[in-house]
């Protein structure tokens, strides 16, 4: 392994740590407050293109040590192996599937139907078997965690074939950020970070980062960004959706900013066109949080976790920014409307 020449023996060696951090890139044209420095931490530079590589590698290691994962064919050609089942909106599943594939472990991802097709196909490309769960029929507070319960059922009823890391409850999800993301940021900012801005999902990132950074400097402000009710930002949870995770600890968070979820898309588009940062929707929402903090606090050094990039979310972008699809079809010159467009 050589991080200078970037020559590696396998994908595991590319996983980030203090010596091989994901990049921090300063926001320039879109920073609303010159006295406040805003950095984006580009988690899409991880091997499987999201922040979830960190938790996934820790979870996989734990499952290997404690649950006896077994590669396919270990005990003869008919041996299906013992692998991972996990409920996932896509990114954790993709990281787990990618890493599991390298080791020969089977992977079953249980995901809600609203996950974009791009992510579903990527999971299949990575070798995962999918169990797609219908979205809530009648959503009610605290309800509709069908994918989590289905994965738990599989892990219990088919424990000879699958083990479930349970990213929503597993302290290794937190540990991954205490031992990698946190130290990376501390080193990259030479300890000058004043604000940490991230989102809420499993809450492993916010809890792990807060624990590490506040141990270094208790004055660092940890700000969590949450999408507004009824949101469509895959992977994120708003405050009313946090009951499924045991990793959320409000004592470690200084502020929660609830932000109109449509801004996730428009801010992400601005980041791509103005900063060259191909941000996904969650990064767009976090950036809006960073803007709010910069305008409010005037001075400081903020680091924003940009969880993943835009490529997996073309469908979502088209839905939330319908103008993006204009001019994407050839024009009919006799009747200058895009071919196939409905008449007025």
């Amino acid at each position, binding site marked *: 392994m050589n991080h200078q020449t970037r020559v590696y023996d396998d994908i595991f060696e590319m996983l980030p740590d203090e010596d091989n951090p994901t990049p921090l890139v300063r926001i320039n044209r879109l920073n609303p407050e010159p006295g406040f420095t805003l950095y984006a931490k580009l988690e899409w530079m991880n091997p499987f293109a999201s922040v979830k590589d960190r938790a996934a590698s820790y979870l996989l290691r734990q499952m290997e040590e404690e649950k006896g994962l077994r590669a396919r064919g270990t005990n003869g050609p008919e041996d299906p192996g013992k692998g991972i089942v996990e409920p996932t909106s896509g990114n954790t599943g993709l990281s787990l599937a990618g890493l599991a594939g390298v080791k020969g472990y089977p992977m079953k991802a249980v995901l809600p139907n609203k996950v974009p097709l791009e992510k579903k196909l990527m999971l299949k490309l990575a070798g995962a078997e999918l*169990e797609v*769960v*219908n*979205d*809530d*029929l*009648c*959503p*009610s*507070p*605290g*309800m*509709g965690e*069908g994918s989590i*319960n*289905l994965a*738990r*059922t*599989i892990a*219990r*009823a*088919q424990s000879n074939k699958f083990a479930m890391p349970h990213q929503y409850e597993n302290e290794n999800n937190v540990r991954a950020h205490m031992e990698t993301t946190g130290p990376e940021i501390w080193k990259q900012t030479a300890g000058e970070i004043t604000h940490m801005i991230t989102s809420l999902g499993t809450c492993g990132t916010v809890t792990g980062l807060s624990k590490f950074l506040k141990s270094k400097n208790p004055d660092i402000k940890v700000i969590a960004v949450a999408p507004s009710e*009824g949101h469509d930002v895959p992977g994120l949870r708003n405050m009313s959706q946090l*009951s499924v995770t045991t990793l959320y600890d409000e004592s470690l968070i200084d502020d929660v900013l609830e932000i109109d979820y449509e801004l996730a898309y428009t801010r992400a588009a601005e980041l791509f066109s103005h900063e060259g940062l191909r941000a996904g929707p969650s990064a767009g929402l976090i950036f809006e949080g960073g803007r709010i903090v910069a305008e409010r606090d005037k001075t400081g050094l903020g680091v924003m976790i940009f969880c993943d990039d835009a490529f997996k979310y073309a469908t979502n972008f088209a839905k939330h920014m319908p103008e993006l699809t204009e001019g994407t079809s050839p024009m009919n010159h006799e009747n200058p409307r895009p071919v196939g467009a409905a008449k007025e």
Partner: protein
Amino acid sequence: MSEYADPSVLVSTDWVNERLNTDLKIVEVDVDTQQYAAGHIPGAVAFDWTTQLQDQTQRDIISKENFEALLGKAGISNDDEVVIYGDNNNWFAAYAFWVFKYYGHDNVKLMNGGRSKWLDEEDKPLTTDTPNPTPTTYSVGETNPQIRAFAQDVLQVARDGNANLVDVRSPDECSGKVIAPPGRSETAQRAGHVPGAKSVPWVTAVNPDGTFKSRGDLEKIYFEDAGVSEGTDTIAYCRIGERSSHTWFVLKYLLGLPNVKNYDGSWTEYGSMIGVPIER
């Protein structure tokens, strides 16, 4: 559970676990029908709420003949003790329970907490083995039409106000902000609620572990907070009649209201009728 008005209709996960491999018949009914295949209580059969508990041609509950065939194929006899459980806090399990009661199967119970509670308890076994029951000849005797409300019953209450109406949908559906939750295909022409209906979302009745709240808590929710009158007839409704089965169960068996009906036509019917009164 002995505190409830009729504790005989509710059993615990431990109670069921102690009776595995006995004559007890166990039925799983889920919102998400994939759950059963992934793992279920040993010996349990599964009924699909969309294809097996509803008529597949006209909008109606399963016919008497099809109910008899369904239970016969599942190896259930008229005298069998049946326990029903399911996902999402026994939501559709309660609907199945209502259908069983409608067709006069007296000895039927819900497993408190449903499959989520079973899953939470490490000592409870799960299997992917599908049982192969010996078919029986099930024959429906006397039915219980008094537990079912039709549109005319609801209209009568809307006009006279002489019974409780409980709207168990989400607050946004009840207030008329939305006609149905986003993305749902079953909808209505108009938004709002039946005049005089009290809004108590169905899930208010359950604890975080999926079990029903205590009788004292339920009395506070329905009687004190929502203003449901204890001595009056009651109709519960939702959007398509399933969520309201859950509240029907609570009001009739846990709180012991005298005459509770489930209006399975619910808002998709009421909100589409011409000329009926609607409040927002």
